[in-house]
């Protein structure tokens, strides 16, 4: 047969080989660029952080309860900023987790093929809304409602930022969880139905636990998004580093603080300016840990079904 002879032509083979080498070299360069950029950022961050800790003790940084680098009497306790970040993130998760899970269960277990085709793109559009819009939504829409309900609410407060952020993260939580639920094999659902389980029992007691590690990965991804989110908190949560658990008060998150200093007129050589690198480094470390945890959870999930 002539065709088999053709495909064995060494000329073809050489050409394919050359192509493969070029593609490999190109992709390698791109990979190098992205890894290099990340390394560069970490290097800069680390360098400035080290300089900062030559002037401020690391113990003070992690134990002092006041954060006033921009004032005359400077204190460098990062806890109020961490507190603000975690408070807002926790509130956001309170909104995003239940709603996101319900949406995911609905999409994967209840929605018809046609409904899914409409709803999934809507979720993706929701995920594409610029965060600055959510920020103004919090300040101009959610805060007035909160102030009607609880008159002691401050204009800038953690709660309204939390709620807006919850809605911002919801699509992420929903779509990653939905992927995990959909990946649960059909045979497991059939096993459940065959025992006389209802659709709801099957969804909540069989499919959800089977997808738990995927859902946990979605949760952690969402938390790291919440911790790193900047615009909403810069607009709506205030600029008052405070150790408080009251969400109706004005607070300041790590990200909002970095924005405040970057945009302000703090001299670049001052110790006040260097604080943003230390805070940035801490933020980076927190999200990195989250992402690593999520990586391992996702990996374990894959192993289970493949």
């Amino acid at each position, binding site marked *: 047969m002539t065709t088999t002879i053709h495909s064995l032509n060494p000329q073809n083979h050489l050409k394919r080989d050359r192509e493969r080498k070029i593609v490999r070299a190109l992709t390698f360069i791109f990979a190098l660029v992205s890894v290099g950029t990340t390394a560069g950022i970490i290097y800069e961050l680390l360098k400035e952080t080290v300089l900062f800790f030559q002037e401020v003790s690391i113990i003070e940084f992690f134990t002092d309860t006041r954060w006033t680098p921009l004032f005359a009497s400077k204190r460098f306790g990062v806890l109020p900023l961490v507190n603000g970040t975690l408070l807002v993130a926790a509130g956001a998760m309170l909104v995003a987790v239940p709603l996101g899970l319900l949406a995911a269960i609905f999409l994967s277990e209840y929605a018809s093929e046609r409904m899914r085709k409409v709803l999934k793109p809507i979720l993706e559009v929701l995920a594409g809304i610029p965060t600055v819009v959510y920020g103004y939504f919090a300040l101009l829409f959610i805060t007035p409602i909160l102030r009607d309900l609880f008159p002691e609410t401050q204009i800038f407060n953690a709660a309204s930022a939390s709620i807006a952020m919850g809605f911002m993260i919801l699509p992420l939580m929903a779509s990653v969880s939905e992927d995990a639920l959909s990946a649960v094999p059909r045979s497991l659902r059939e096993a459940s139905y*065959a025992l*006389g389980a209802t659709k709801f029992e099957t969804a909540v007691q069989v499919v959800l636990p*089977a997808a738990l590690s995927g859902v946990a990965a979605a949760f952690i991804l969402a938390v790291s998004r919440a911790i790193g989110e900047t615009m909403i908190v810069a607009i709506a949560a205030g600029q008052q580093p405070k150790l408080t658990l009251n969400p109706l008060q004005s607070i300041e998150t790590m990200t909002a603080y970095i924005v405040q200093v970057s945009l302000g007129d703090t001299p670049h050589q001052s110790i006040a300016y260097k604080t943003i690198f230390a805070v940035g480094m801490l933020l980076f470390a927190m999200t990195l840990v989250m992402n690593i945890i999520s990586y391992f959870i996702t990996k374990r999930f894959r192993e289970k079904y493949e």
Partner: protein
Amino acid sequence: MDNNHNTVLETKNLNIYYGDFLAIKDVNFKVFRHQITAIIGPSGCGKSTLLRSFNRMNELVPSARSEGKILFNGEDIYDPSIDPVEVRRRIGMVFQKPNPFPKSIYENIAWGLKINGFRGSKSELDDLVEQALRGAALWDEVKDKLDQSGLSLSGGQQQRLCIARAIAIKPEVILMDEPASALDPIATLKIEDLMRELKENYTIVIVTHNMQEAARVSDYTAMMMLTGDEERSGTVIEFDQTNVIFTRPKDKRTEDYITGRFG
């Protein structure tokens, strides 16, 4: 055929469609109480489709639709007033590929009991779990590791766990779709022995590709074939006692199929 009073399941002019495609056509046959009924036939002739219509599993396929009747103890299970969940509770199923829940061995069995309204004490539940595992000839192998994952068992053990899970809720009928096809010969024989024991208390319908298996375990055999225009829809072409089907089949196609496989 005699013993009509002992009919558990009966199909009447059953047609099942996937969309516009008529998968099985005009099926009429019966399943007798405390007997093992085998459904045999070439691949794609609708054996699984027929089996899955008995516990209304087929309707989970969005495009599936049926005509005709399936009587369970004389009652039409496709009647609008019948809850499919109740049908599935009374007609259990074991699948081709073992599909234990990713829960502990104990929970695999206890869960079915709980969702079916078990409200007793922990020790009563323990007893029922043990009973089911003994019933599936698995107890001795797993009694020391009930809290391990059901997925940690071997394929044959997993399949017996699935049988235990099915009999725990005491259905009247157990449907089995090639339950041994994923197993080695020894595990297969174990499952066959088990079926003969289960026959005392349950009615079993089994789909199998293995002629010897059908001949070894079943009392009745339904032979399915593709028929009709362009031979696209399956139907039951012959139904009789297994020894009749295997020794003196009336239909030439049955004979060809069986001897083809044997020879």
